[in-house]
């Protein structure tokens, strides 16, 4: 990693430099901007830098060297599915026949894009056991919001009013936040000491006002909800829906389908299970699948297949009962395109192998790290991720210390302090794209850390050491007087 300091771009360059030549465009006497009345015109872009192309390239290259990606190291963030992002899909997503398409072109001229979207929808239906998908949501949380709005619309159409959404305490923070954004009140459901959802707690909070329960399956404990069939029956009997947060779908592809377990709605994450790159926090895509009775409420437009004069064509469709539009156009097409390529590469056998290898890798780490003394809160077979806590570590070593020390050892840390159901959580998801050798070296690193925790705790408390910056002071940066959210000209 580059440990130097990189000046802000606003502090670089010199007046008179430019990164792109526009002379050939400009007519010598161009004052057309004066057509805009003076009171509506900007005076200058003061503050913007003036740099040449090579300076610009150096700046961003050096910045990139202060980052780590999946291509350079194991990145075992739990519930994030940081698997390898196939390069061929990047090449395809940069083809001009896809990037150049304007969504307002005549539909006859964008049949290739419609076809891809329609076929991807059929594939996701099959993989998840659902009847229809919308591909318009552009992130997991966006999908959650869409799914919950669909549920709300369906309940409204039944002439009923249900205001509550049940959410297990192990859920991702987006679940309750999405529920509120969809106008619901989230209600906690407890989890048992074995990590599963408490049926007792569920029965206690379940009433006529429950619109749905959101369940991440496998859960963020890395465990399959064994009672899922029973939970589905209990909810359906009350006229409530069962929503699947598909963040952890990687463990199930080709093995079992949420639709078969009684889930009525599912959001999937193309940037997790379907290998599209995270890009440092997006763009992603969060398609939402539903069972037949909910199809009319899917957001618009939907891509449908039609026939005219014996020829098949695709077109967008607008249903009156739809929850409405949730994105400017058809969602993150280029992300969906990558997911489509991924599924075509994997096929049924490949996807099954994804689930098998990811679960095998996770259990291998669970057993191996547990043998090193890392505390496993739920001691049974895990799915594609395994949960540890910092219980019993010597010399006051915390989860944060271990995470930061892992950076020194050449790894991106695991997910830390999540889920909130255990103290000092460390959620490790190796994914199926890591080799056994890599896992073995990771286990060795974790073993060294146990040794260091006993012998040299300071080494851990002060980690990381080789990075461009040391442990950051978040408390200080968040003090109102210190809050610095942009560069300003002095």
């Amino acid at each position, binding site marked *: 990693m580059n440990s130097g300091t990189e000046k802000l771009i606003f502090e670089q360059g010199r007046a008179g430099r430019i990164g792109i030549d526009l002379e050939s*465009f400009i007519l010598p006497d161009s004052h057309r901007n004066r057509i805009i009345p003076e009171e509506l015109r900007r005076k200058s872009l003061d503050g913007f830098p003036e740099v040449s192309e090579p300076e610009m*390239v150096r700046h961003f290259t050096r910045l990139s060297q202060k980052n780590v990606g999946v291509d350079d190291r194991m990145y075992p963030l739990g519930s994030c599915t*940081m698997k390898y992002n196939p390069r061929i899909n990047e090449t395809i997503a940069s083809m001009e026949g896809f990037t*150049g398409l304007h*969504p*307002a072109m005549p539909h006859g001229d964008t049949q290739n894009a419609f076809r891809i979207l329609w076929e991807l929808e059929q594939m996701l239906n099959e993989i998840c056991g659902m009847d229809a998908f919308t591909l318009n949501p552009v992130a997991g949380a966006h999908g959650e919001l869409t799914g919950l709005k669909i549920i709300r619309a369906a309940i409204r159409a039944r002439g009923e009013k249900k205001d509550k959404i049940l959410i297990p305490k192990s859920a991702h923070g987006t679940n309750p936040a999405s529920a509120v954004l969809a106008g619901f009140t989230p209600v906690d459901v407890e989890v048992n000491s074995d990590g599963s959802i408490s049926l007792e707690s569920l029965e206690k909070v379940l009433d006529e006002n429950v619109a749905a329960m959101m369940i991440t399956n496998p859960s963020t404990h890395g465990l399959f909800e064994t009672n899922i069939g029973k939970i589905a029956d209990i909810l359906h009997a009350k006229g409530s829906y069962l929503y699947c947060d598909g963040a952890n779908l990687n463990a199930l592809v080709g093995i079992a389908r949420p639709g078969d377990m009684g889930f009525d709605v599912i959001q999937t994450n193309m940037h997790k299970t379907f290998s599209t790159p995270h890009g440092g926090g997006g763009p992603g895509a969060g398609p939402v699948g539903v069972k037949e009775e909910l199809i009319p409420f899917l957001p618009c437009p939907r891509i449908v297949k039609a026939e005219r004069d014996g020829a098949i064509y695709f077109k967008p469709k607008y249903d009156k009962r739809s929850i409405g539009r949730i994105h400017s156009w058809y969602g993150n097409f280029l992300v969906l395109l990558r997911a489509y390529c991924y599924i075509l590469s994997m096929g049924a056998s490949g996807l099954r192998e994804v689930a098998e290898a990811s679960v095998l890798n996770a259990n291998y780490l669970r057993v191996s790290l547990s043998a090193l003394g890392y505390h496993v809160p739920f001691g049974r077979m895990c799915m594609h991720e395994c949960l540890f806590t910092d219980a019993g570590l010597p010399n006051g070593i915390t989860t944060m210390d271990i995470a930061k020390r892992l950076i020194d050892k050449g790894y991106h840390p695991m997910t830390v302090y999540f889920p909130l159901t255990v103290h000092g959580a460390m959620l490790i998801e190796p994914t199926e794209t890591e080799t*056994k050798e890599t896992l073995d070296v990771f286990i060795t690193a974790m073993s060294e850390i146990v040794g260091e925790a006993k012998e040299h705790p300071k080494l851990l408390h002060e980690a990381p050491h080789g990075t461009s910056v040391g442990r950051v002071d978040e408390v200080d940066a968040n003090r109102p007087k210190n809050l610095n*959210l942009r560069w300003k000209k002095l």
Partner: protein
Amino acid sequence: MRYIPLTPEDKDAMLKTIGAKNIGELFEQIPEEFKLKKDLKLPAPLGEMELSAHMKALSEEGEITLKNISFLGGGINRHYVPAVIPALLSREEFLTAYTPYQPEASQGTLQALYEFQTYIAILSGMDVANASLYDGATATAEAALMARRINKKGKTVYVSSALHPHYREVLRTYLRDVDVPVVELPFDQKTGKTIYDAEQMKDALCLIVGYPNYFGIIENLDEAKEVATKIGALLISVTTEALSLAILKPPGEFGVDIFVGEGQSFGLPPSFGGPLLGLMATKTEHVRNLPGRIIGKGKDKFGKDAFMIVIATREQHIKREKATSNICTNEALCALTAVMYLTLYGKTGLADLAKINMENACALRGAMKGMFKDCISFSGPTFNEFVIRTPLPAKFVLEALAQRNIYGGIALSKDYRRSNPNDILVAVTEMNRLDEVFNFVNALKEVSQ
């Protein structure tokens, strides 16, 4: 499978460590009734060469359309993307990194997003920006929700009907379930500007206006601000063509409370409408009500400058149901694209690019006026987009132009039922050379006869 490295020997050794007899045992938590008994019905897996050929054929179908002359805009803007941008974006450290929750391993993304916030703050003339939202449409909806958090007295969202139709649809979708009424304000048929009636808007919580609006008209936000102040509402301005901000008075200088926009113009190709880049900026006093991620500059334990996610106590992973939004994954790589683009064009280049857009747009306006009477639908000032009125219905004209390999724009009647059926929204950018402009006008003449 080429992406999965485990060999049968690896698997056996690992199963032994785990104490499982076979892979099936790992899945024993899943009740038998839910296990798939047969393979998924999916196309047979493709090798890279086959996949590449299949996708190339699909891309070629689209490439034919790129030979056409295009005047399509309407929020998806056609601008040239310099080659260094995709080259730098393909660096795996940016492309394959996660959300920067571990600041020591993510200083690259964090510093770039801090620079992004600075660029957006300067462009919008606001104090602070966030690190991106999904797109301009959802950013508009988030802005209305943010206004509701700030303005507890107001009840109704008033939105200009001259705002992008899709943005208004998304706004309605977002607000429908949280009991916030949305009322649309009419626009002047002559000027294309929003009409306000302060007397009728007393229950307003915010006022949302396009800048420029969907018809390309640059509305003077002074009037909107005056009305908003009078009725105690927040003013939200929405820019769907971010390049216009290089030449227009920044929304912040009009006293706008929340700026939102679509940043796709800054280095993102049209891409069939996604990924896009939602922009949002506000005044310092409202920073804690912003949705989404915010990057701050602070110190590490040695006192060295360091970048990190700040005021995370607004975000869902900390605050859960009390968060300002549910957003988690946003459009970070698109924000990085915009930073690269704005850096490359810089202080003079971006302003010049905006001028070139004006120049080409004016050329079309001029040529239109020379050939047709009353062919500019609205009299208000415009940037690179405006509405033309053709002698025949837009639907017919656009189809006839398409026959001549020209995408002539978007029929206004598609989204405005009561508009003149002959109206077409056209966008002219640096991508349209002057000969294209004249081809367009000549073709228009031909098809109109």
